[in-house]
């Protein structure tokens, strides 16, 4: 029996779907949200994955709250959690970067993990799989090895709590004799073949923002005379393309380390199968993508022009307008990820994946188009389930 937490999240759901597809017996710990029960949320996700009904019999959903001891379940009451659990896959995580949400992040990423480890200790669990992030490296420059780290500083509270979580898991698992595998993906986007995704943040955000602004100012031009668009220098060209003169600061090399979710799942499974004794594993791309490429893809796809990379000195020469400020704010927040020149070592994971022929595809315009088409089609997540 495998217990999986975070099964209603992006990575957790994909791992859950994969395990179900492999006919594993799994317990999903999930919470209700906005009046939708945990079982209904999971059911909705399994529908999204198109999993046939006959496979779903091996899935059991437990409605609980990770942040509460014993998941808030009645102490002593018989639940499937009282039985034997062979493995735990802990995906649940709060991925906010917001310092103001530190308490919530610590409650989930550390407190929640602690409660799952409590269960691991008392349930006879033999293997613990912790889904972490490549960015536990914090502000460490250069080569980041597949080993536990103690960076002197972090970009945000998310990185910090995930790093502390790794140490917590190591300490507790080693004390209890549980084999621990730590998986560190970089930034995960949709499926490289279908474009499907459950989450539309990091990679998608700048494109979504550009599209939002394009639609906003096109409406202004078409319906209200275009005064606001004019103030920003936005115009619709004769060929139907929209020009949005937006300078983006470009000073460093480096890129965004992104991986498609199907690669992540295959890599996770390969490492889980191959390395029984556990360890720390990066699941990353060997070919980081430049933000400029992403913007180019976005411009081509959505018939936009006018975005330009601009050295910092030139940026300072002319005040930024609101549109540039929006992008700059985004770039500020994600700078360490976007202009990342670090190399995430794959000394351990690389051979495992290579031996199974698992390779991370580069983000091409074709893959990008599939992903963005899907994102637009599902309203950036608003219509994921057809609502």
């Amino acid at each position: 029996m495998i217990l999986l937490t975070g099964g209603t999240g992006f990575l957790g759901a994909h791992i859950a779907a994969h395990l179900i597809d492999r006919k594993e017996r799994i317990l999903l710990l999930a919470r209700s949200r906005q009046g939708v029960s945990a079982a209904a949320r999971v059911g909705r996700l399994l529908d999204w994955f198109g999993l046939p009904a006959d496979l779903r019999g091996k899935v059991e959903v437990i409605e609980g709250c990770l942040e509460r001891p014993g998941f808030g379940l009645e102490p002593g009451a018989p639940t499937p959690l009282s039985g034997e659990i062979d493995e735990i896959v802990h995906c649940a995580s709060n991925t906010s970067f917001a310092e103001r949400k530190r308490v919530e992040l610590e409650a989930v990423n550390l407190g929640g993990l602690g409660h799952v480890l409590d269960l691991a200790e008392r349930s006879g669990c033999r293997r613990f799989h912790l889904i972490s992030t490549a960015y536990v490296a914090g502000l460490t420059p250069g080569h980041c090895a597949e080993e536990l780290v103690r960076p002197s500083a972090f970009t945000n509270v998310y990185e910090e709590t995930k790093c502390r979580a790794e140490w917590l898991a190591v300490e507790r698992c080693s004390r209890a004799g549980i084999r621990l595998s730590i998986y560190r993906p970089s930034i995960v986007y949709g499926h490289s073949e279908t474009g499907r995704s459950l989450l539309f943040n990091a990679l998608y955000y700048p494109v979504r923002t550009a599209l939002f602004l394009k639609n906003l100012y096109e409406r202004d031009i078409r319906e209200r005379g275009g005064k606001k668009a004019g103030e920003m220098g936005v115009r619709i060209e004769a060929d139907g393309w929209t020009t949005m003169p937006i300078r983006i600061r470009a000073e460093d090399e480096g890129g965004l380390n992104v991986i498609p979710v199907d690669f992540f799942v295959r890599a996770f499974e390969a490492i889980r199968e191959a390395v029984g004794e556990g360890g720390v594993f990066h699941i990353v791309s060997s070919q980081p993508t430049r933000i400029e490429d992403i913007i180019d893809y976005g411009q081509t796809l959505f018939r936009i022009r006018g975005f330009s990379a601009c050295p910092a000195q030139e940026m300072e020469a002319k005040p930024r307008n609101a549109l540039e400020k929006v992008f700059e704010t985004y770039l500020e927040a994600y700078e360490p990820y976007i202009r990342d020149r670090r190399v995430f070592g794959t000394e351990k994971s690389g051979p495992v994946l290579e031996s199974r022929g698992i390779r991370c595809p580069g983000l091409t315009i074709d893959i990008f188009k599939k992903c963005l088409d899907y994102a637009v089609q599902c309203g950036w997540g608003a219509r994921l389930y057809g609502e």
Partner: protein
Amino acid sequence: MPKDDDDVLRTAAQCRHYAMCKIDYLGTGLCPPGKKYHYVSYYPQGRMDLYAALAEDLIPVTEGLVRIAETCTLCGICDLQCHFVTGLRPLRVMKALKDRVGDFLKGGGKPASVAPDAPLRRLQGIVGADWATNDPAVLVTYANDPFPLAGMKMPRYVVLPGSRDEVAAVVRLANELGLPYAVRGNGGSVFGFVFSEGMVLDMQRMRRISVDKDNWSASVGPGVTSFELQQEAFRHGLRVNAAEPAATVCGNIVCTGTFSAWSHAYGTAADGFIDMEFVDSRGEVFPLNDKKAPNVYAFENAVIPAPGICTEALVKLQPTTEDEDGLLVPFWDFDQAVALARELGRRRIGLAVAVMGIHYIANFMSPSKDLAGRLKDVLPETLGIRYAVFAIGDRFAREAIHKLAAAVIDSDLLRTLTLGLPRLLDPEWQDLVKGFEAGRPPYEILCRPEMRPLLEAVLRPSPETFAGAVEEDLRKPYAELYSQPRFTDMTWLNMFRILSSRMSRRKHMFAFLVYVPLDRHDVINHINSEFDRIAQAHGIDHDFGFLTPMDLGKRAILEYDYYIDHTDPAEREKIRRAMLEIGPWLDGLAERTKGVTFLKYVFSQGCSRKENFLYR
């Protein structure tokens, strides 16, 4: 009862008794019969009570009720007025009341007539036949309030004296007859303390205001509301420290001493007036500025009666400058917000200052209950705002605050956000705003001046955009209201406080007020967390309200609010049980903590020197 009647009755029962229908705060006029006949029974508030009382068979159709029903012209003034603050639509209640009485008469019903008894005849001899009554239709509108801890008390008489001498004569007569009495400034009391089985005195007719600019004072009668006094002060380019708009000035001073965000500069209690005149329990008149007068400036930490019936107050008028304007400093962290408020106190910056919780901000900005509820979620979740320090000040004060704060929502930005509110809540825009966030909360980015053009483009703020959030038939009047700059002018809105009743739009509000030491974050946080704990234990909706620094930031007044449906007996029981915990806890805290005083003990001692209860 048919469903329509059920809905009408539900509306009638939800009247909060804030008496906002008794002041012309929207500039759309005043209920004509109310203005003419003065009894609360003739105002929409009274008619709501009358409809509920008839439905519950509490009163028969009386001659007085027929008069009340017939004088309503269904002009609709009340519908916009009431919706603006409570979201209720009373017009259909007004119509249902008229229809019900009309049907009664058409069916051959004969209205009950209650003959005057000897005491009433003597009361009428003092105040005039029109201004004292024992008609049950009038009495019942003075018998109850939404306050959940007091039952109905039907008075025998309602009397509306017209002068100080009439008040004194009525008191002497009451003493002679052994008739208990209660005084209601504006014919409404949200705390339900002002009822009597004997006689209710409604001071509504005594509405004289006289401004003495040379003495920076205004003389006001006990029927004058804060709104009306502020209007008069405003006409002279001056200001008073104002209570809720429908509260009477005299009643408010006597009850708790006037406190508001302006108390930051203008103080509270005895700071607000120069002199007051009372009729004491023997029917004798005395001014406070008299060496022989009772010492009402002293304070005793106990529930004690008022010094008498206030028949006139000489209220301080304050100067204004032309460059006054408001701003909000948003915060995620409460302690940081309190620290800024204290800093403004210590440095004497600004005229009005308050830390506000999101329930306040959301309701002040939103024209509907639904929108306020959504904004209350969006403010913290999307924008990172859980609190805001609100301030009014001249340009020097505002410049200073800009230097002290990481981000400021100035009056232009607030106007943009308010008039574009429905689009601010658009899910797609929210997703984008959330994406701004990393180390700094999104509000810091939205507050940047260079973001204004984008905000303008996204929100397309206009009175019409704003009005789009209310029912279709109200959109035009809402758009007209919000075309007037004062409806988005922070200074005007906070001088007149016309939005304060929106706090109770969702449910009846039960406010707890405590004076606190502003340098003691531990005490303030303890008070908030204990109110939170008790509310949760009893399943009561609750929220931090506001905190205003006083006396150079040494002390503050803190409001924490509980919200209940006062028509639901189970909710009433919850608040009753909660009160059993709150009283002893706050008493104990006040006993061992300097600077903590429960406002409960200031009731009826509002004329005290504030120093006497702030520094016990």
